[in-house]
C-alpha cells in the first residue's frame, strides 16, 4: 500500500524554527489539505514532503511510485511551447518523444486548451491558460501522488470549478492521492478527506478535520454549510485570528 508518512518533522531556516513536530499520514486515494495563514510554513512542509528540501529532523517516508507537482505560478519553461511544456514531464520519465507529444496533445484538449494554442509560448498565454498547462503537465504523468501549492489562488471561480472537477475525476480514475496547501477553507472542504490546520510560529498542526462524504456529491449547499460550521471552530478562529476582525 502506497503512503506518505510524516513523523516528528521539525525544520529550521537558520535559527528560526519553521515547523515543529509535524505528524500525519496520507494513504492511497486520499486527499489531504494543509490550511493555515500565510507565512505559516505550509510551503516548506509541502516542499519537504515532495523532496524539494532536505529533511533535517524527523522522517518523511514516501512510498508513492510517481509524484508530480503543480506550482502556484505555473513555472512553465518560457522557451518551450504549450505542448513541449506538457510533454517534458513525460520525457523526463524516459517516454518516447512521439508518444509524449501525442499524450500531451490529448491531455491539453481535455484541459480546455485549443489546437491553436499548442504552438504558443508561455508569454502569449493568459494566467488561466498557463495554469491549465501547469495542471496538464502534472497530471499527464498519471501520478499516484500529486502535490499542489495553492495553484488555484489567482484563478476565476469558473476555471477553479473546472480544475476541481478534473482533479476529482483523476482521483476516481487513477486512485490518485493529493497533498495540497491552500488558505481557502471552502476549497479545502470541497476537495479534502482530511484538513490539517497549521498554526504559525513555529508551524504545527493544531487540529484535523475529517470529511467522509464522497467528493463528487459535495454540492454548494454542503460546502457552504460546512464552511459556516468550520469558521465557528475555536482553533480556526485563533489560527486565522478571526476575532480581531470582528466589528466592535
Amino acid at each position: 500500500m502506497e503512503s506518505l508518512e510524516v513523523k516528528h518533522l521539525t525544520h529550521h531556516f537558520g535559527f528560526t524554527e519553521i515547523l515543529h513536530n509535524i505528524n500525519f499520514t496520507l494513504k492511497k486515494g486520499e486527499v489531504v489539505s494543509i490550511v493555515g495563514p500565510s507565512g505559516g510554513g505550509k510551503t516548506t512542509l509541502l516542499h519537504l514532503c515532495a523532496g524539494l528540501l532536505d529533511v533535517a529532523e524527523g522522517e518523511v517516508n514516501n512510498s508513492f511510485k510517481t509524484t508530480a507537482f503543480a506550482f502556484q505560478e505555473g513555472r512553465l519553461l518560457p522557451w518551450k511551447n504549450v505542448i513541449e511544456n506538457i510533454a517534458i514531464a513525460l520525457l523526463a520519465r524516459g517516454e518516447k518523444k512521439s508518444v509524449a507529444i501525442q499524450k500531451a496533445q490529448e491531455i491539453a484538449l481535455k484541459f480546455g486548451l485549443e489546437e491553436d494554442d499548442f504552438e504558443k509560448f508561455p508569454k502569449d498565454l493568459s494566467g488561466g491558460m498557463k495554469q491549465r498547462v501547469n495542471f496538464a503537465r502534472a497530471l499527464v504523468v498519471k501520478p499516484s501522488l500529486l502535490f499542489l501549492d495553492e495553484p488555484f489562488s489567482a484563478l476565476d471561480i469558473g476555471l477553479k470549478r473546472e480544475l476541481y472537477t478534473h482533479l476529482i475525476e483523476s482521483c476516481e480514475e487513477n486512485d490518485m492521492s493529493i497533498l495540497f496547501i491552500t488558505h481557502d477553507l471552502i476549497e479545502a472542504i470541497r476537495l479534502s478527506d482530511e484538513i490539517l490546520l497549521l498554526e504559525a510560529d513555529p508551524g504545527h498542526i493544531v487540529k484535523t478535520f475529517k470529511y467522509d462524504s464522497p467528493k463528487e456529491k459535495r454540492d454548494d449547499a454542503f460546502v457552504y454549510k460546512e464552511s459556516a460550521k468550520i469558521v465557528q471552530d475555536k482553533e480556526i478562529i485563533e489560527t486565522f485570528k478571526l476575532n480581531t476582525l470582528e466589528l466592535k
Partner: protein
Amino acid sequence: MKFFLKILKDFPAYLWSGWGAVASILLFIAFWDVGNQIYGNLVLPSPLETFKTLYAMLHSKDILEQIDITLYRASVGFGLSLLFGSVLGLIAGFFATASMMSRPIVTILVGMPPIAWIVLAMIWFGMGDETVIFTVVVASFPIIFVGALQGTRTLDGELKEMADSFAFPWHMKFIDVYFPHIFSYIFPAWVSGLGMAWKIVIMAELLATSDGMGAELAIARSQLDTPTALALVTIMIGSLMFIEYIILEPIKREVELWRV
C-alpha cells in the same frame, strides 16, 4: 537540422524586412557625398571613387592575401576567446566564490586600454601573429566571460525546483532548463566579442605588424592615400555587417522567438 531549415525558410522574409536598413545606409552614403563636395577629394574622397578603389582592391591578389592574414588572426583570437570565455564564464557562474573572485580581474582586463596591451604584447612576443592574437584575446575574452557568468548567475531557482520536482535527468536539466537561459546571455556576448575582435585586430596590426589589413591601412596613411584607407574601412565594416546581419541575426531571431 529542423532548426536550420526553419532559419533558411524564414530568411527571405527577414531579408525583405531589411529595406529600412538599406535606405538608411543609402542616406548615409548621400551625406558622405555631400561631405566630399564640401571638403574635396583629399580629405574625403567621394563614395564612387572609394567603391572604385575597393573594386580594384578586391581584384588584386596581394590585398586578398592581406585580408586572409587578418581574417586568420581575428578568427584564432576570437575562437580562443569564445572557447575560454564561455567555458570559464560558465564554471565561474556556477560557483559563488569563483564569480566573486573573478570580478576584479575582469574589471582589470576591461579597464586596461587595448593600446597598453599592444605595447606589452610587442615587448613579450615581438612583431608578429602572436602579438595581434594576444591583443584580440585580451580584448574580447572578458566580454564573453562576463556574458557567460551573468547567464549562469541569473538562472531561475524556481525553474530548477520545477525540474527537480519532475526528476529531470541531468542532461535534460542542462539542455532544456539551463542552456536556453544561458544562451540568451552568452549569444549577444559572442556578437559583441566578435565586433571587438574585428576592431582590435586592425588596430594591433596597424601598430605591431608589417602585414594584414591594419598594416595596409598604415601604408595608406603614410602615403596620404585616402581612397585606399576608406576602401579598407569599407571592407572591415562590410564584413562585420555581413556576419552580424546575414549570419548571426537570423540565428538569434529563431533562438529567441520565445522572448519577444
